[in-house]
């Protein structure tokens, strides 16, 4: 939500195209995420899982309502010339921004996989995830790694927002819809699997579209929530995950 | 009279055969010890007996009744209770409240459970710490609390998992006397132990587990002289070396 507003203001005040904004907002939100995890979330939660849940809840309450307070609930959107452009992909016509988003998602997924497999940072992240104390013993700063992971996550979110901006609207509540979608994608794809996230994302997109058609606009939203519940109950490892809860 | 009978119990975790064809028998009123090197499968066996893990094969009988696969809380109600190797106190509660939770298995009234918890605390020498929060206790205190809580459920069979670990010799001595007292009050005890001083002085009967298999069974002094047992702890050929040394001396 924050990133959507940032992108919106970059465009409406400075005329920055959303795709160009990726280069600005990506790094910016990375830093914000890093700082948030390192200096706010970690110290306040003392590392306990239950507390992290509550602290991030408190933060989301603050950010949602800060946005509401500063920018009111007026719906905003941007107008770019190419938003309506259609691309012929052979079987049908697809809106250009959506195609760009698909391409970007695949590229980023690939970059992540490269990051996790080949770089020291990626190995450190995997090490910390698997065995926190052991990672400390070999000299990895766990606090730093947590912050890096969080920062990478927020940078991703910012990029997603820029990709979404041409065809989506901006309100303070817009982020809420994505919470469960994001969690469902991760849980369905399997923890720690990027292929899983991509595949799950595609599947959920199909589910959302189909349930919208079959059940109607308002009832259609239910598809994703039901999948979330069902996956957690019956297949918590997801499609490609190695670890259950 | 056998209080506990384990027959042919096996458990595999992926590629690891943690417990293999284990058979043992604990007689009423006796203290039986289960020893063996680290990683032998002792705690896994306890978890199977107490109902936390189902075995792949085999039967566990308590007082003649088949309890294989029963849920842990059900087995506890029947009178078989275990303690944990890594103690698990209810950290936020006082010693009295901790013991009361165990007491509640047989005592539904809160006030009486709290009162009777005090008696149990006295039995294990913790009456001074009744109102201390559990997280403020020392290792020795936490071990005693774990024991006290288990005792409060009025068990017929008590499974103690390394209850002496981390204690200094004086504390070990106290706990040995306490466990003897518990046995004398009618509770049968099966204990996992590494502290040999406790095993030797307490147990009537010893089983030795290595790599998931029972390799020896007998009275404590027989086990101490058993070559295979010595090799399990000290390594291949150790029995021969020790014999050679004592022959020279």
């Amino acid at each position: 939500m924050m990133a959507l507003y940032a992108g919106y203001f970059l465009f409406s005040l400075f005329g920055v195209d959303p795709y160009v904004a990726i280069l600005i907002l990506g790094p910016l939100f990375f830093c914000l995420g890093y700082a948030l995890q390192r200096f706010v979330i970690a110290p306040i939660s003392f590392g306990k899982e239950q507390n992290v849940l509550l602290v991030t809840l408190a933060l989301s309450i603050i950010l949602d309502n800060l946005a509401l307070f500063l920018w009111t609930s007026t719906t905003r959107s941007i107008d770019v010339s190419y938003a309506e452009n259609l691309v012929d992909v052979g079987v049908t016509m697809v809106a250009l921004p959506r195609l760009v988003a698909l391409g970007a998602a695949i590229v980023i997924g690939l970059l992540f996989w490269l990051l996790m497999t080949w770089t020291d940072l990626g190995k450190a992240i995997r090490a910390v995830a698997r065995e926190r104390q052991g990672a400390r013993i070999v000299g990895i700063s766990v606090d730093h790694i947590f912050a890096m992971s969080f920062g990478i996550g927020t940078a991703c979110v910012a990029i997603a927002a820029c990709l979404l901006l041409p065809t989506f609207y901006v309100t303070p509540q817009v982020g809420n819809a994505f919470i469960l979608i994001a969690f469902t994608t991760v849980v369905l794809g399997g923890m720690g699997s990027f292929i899983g996230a991509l595949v799950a994302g595609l599947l959920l997109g199909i589910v959302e579209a189909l349930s919208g058609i079959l059940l109607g606009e308002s009832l259609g939203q239910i598809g994703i929530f039901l999948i979330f519940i069902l996956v957690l109950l019956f297949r918590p490892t997801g499609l490609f995950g190695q670890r259950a809860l | 009279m056998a209080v506990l009978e384990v027959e042919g119990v096996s458990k595999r975790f992926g590629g690891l055969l943690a417990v293999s064809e284990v058979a043992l028998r604990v007689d009423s009123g006796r203290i039986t010890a289960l020893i063996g090197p680290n990683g032998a499968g002792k705690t896994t066996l306890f978890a199977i007996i107490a109902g936390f893990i189902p075995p792949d094969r085999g039967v566990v009988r308590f007082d003649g009744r088949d309890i294989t696969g029963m849920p842990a809380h059900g087995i506890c109600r029947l009178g078989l209770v275990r303690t944990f190797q890594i103690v698990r106190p209810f950290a936020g509660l006082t010693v009295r409240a901790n013991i009361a939770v165990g007491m509640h298995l047989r005592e539904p009234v809160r006030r009486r459970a709290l009162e009777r918890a005090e008696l149990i605390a006295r039995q294990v020498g913790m009456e001074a710490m009744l109102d201390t929060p559990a997280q403020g206790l020392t290792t020795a205190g936490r071990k005693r609390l774990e024991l006290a809580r288990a005792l409060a459920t009025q068990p017929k069979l008590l499974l103690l998992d390394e209850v002496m670990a981390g204690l200094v010799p004086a504390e070990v001595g106290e706990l040995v006397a306490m466990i003897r007292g518990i046995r004398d009050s009618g509770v049968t005890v099966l204990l996992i132990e590494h502290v040999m001083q406790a095993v030797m002085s307490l147990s009537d009967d010893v089983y030795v587990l290595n790599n998931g298999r029972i390799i020896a069974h007998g009275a404590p002094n027989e086990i101490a002289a058993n070559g295979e047992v010595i090799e399990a702890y000290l390594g291949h050929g150790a029995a021969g070396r020790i014999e050679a040394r004592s022959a020279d001396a």
Partner: protein
Amino acid sequence: MKRRGFDAQLLVLLALGLFFLALPQFIHSSFWLGFWTMALFFALLGQSWNVLGGFGGQISFGHAVFFGTGAYMSAVLQVKFGIDAWTSAAVAVGAGALVGAFIGAVSFRYGLRGSYFALVTLAFAEVFRVLVNAWDFTGAGFGMLIALKPGAANLQFVDRVWFYYLILALVAITLAIAWWIEHSRFGAYLIAVREDEDAAQALGINCFRVKLAAITLSAALAALAGIFYMQYFLFVDSHIAYGPAMSINALLAPMIGGMGTVLGPLIGAVALGGLSEFTSAAIGKTPGVNLLAYGILLLIILRFLPNGLMGLFRGRA
């Protein structure tokens, strides 16, 4: 020493009871009557959350699913079936309890804990929200409106002060329930499950049944709050009833006041109400200011007073 603590708490409860009973005598504006009524309403909602989240340690992010069921069920029974308000209320409480039992049975049977349980409750709340919003029988996008028919038989009161006494009675019931939890075997088992499920199991506690009972009780109380809301405002829609806002309201009071305590949710609700009035006076009634202040307060409490405001009093003893 234990005896003194025991009596002190009863004394405090008694004093509070007298205070709240006498309060209407000193209030001369409908504004302040409304303030205290709503503060007590949030205390009721918070108490319901506290049973499951505070005492039971199962954090729920979707308590609105029980609240909304109470509200919608009582509305539907009155409006669509013409059943009287009191019977509808009784049935609605049952419906809430049923939803609680269902969600609990399903979640706990499959071992959901911590963040996953919290998110699953949120998911269920969203499912219900979408359902009542799409279904004409529950008013679809227009929500449910109960006709204004003042009279005790209709659970609507001409003199608003009776709503105050009603919510006070309901809060008193939840205080009694919380007190009972602290002094009963069920409560001891619930707290043991919260602290360490495996250790609890090893002492003969059927953790599934304990958690199931807790969520059912919690849901019934939340439904009660929903029913009150419905009678007080005579209107709900899917966002009010099942939306994240009400779920967040449910957990704020206990977290601020002190989770797992008898008085925590009440103190928290009053504190939040006071904070709300303060920010309105200081900054104005801009949307978002209230919750912004709440979020900041929550962060402060999490950092400095992890046991909530009650931690200030407990520290002394």
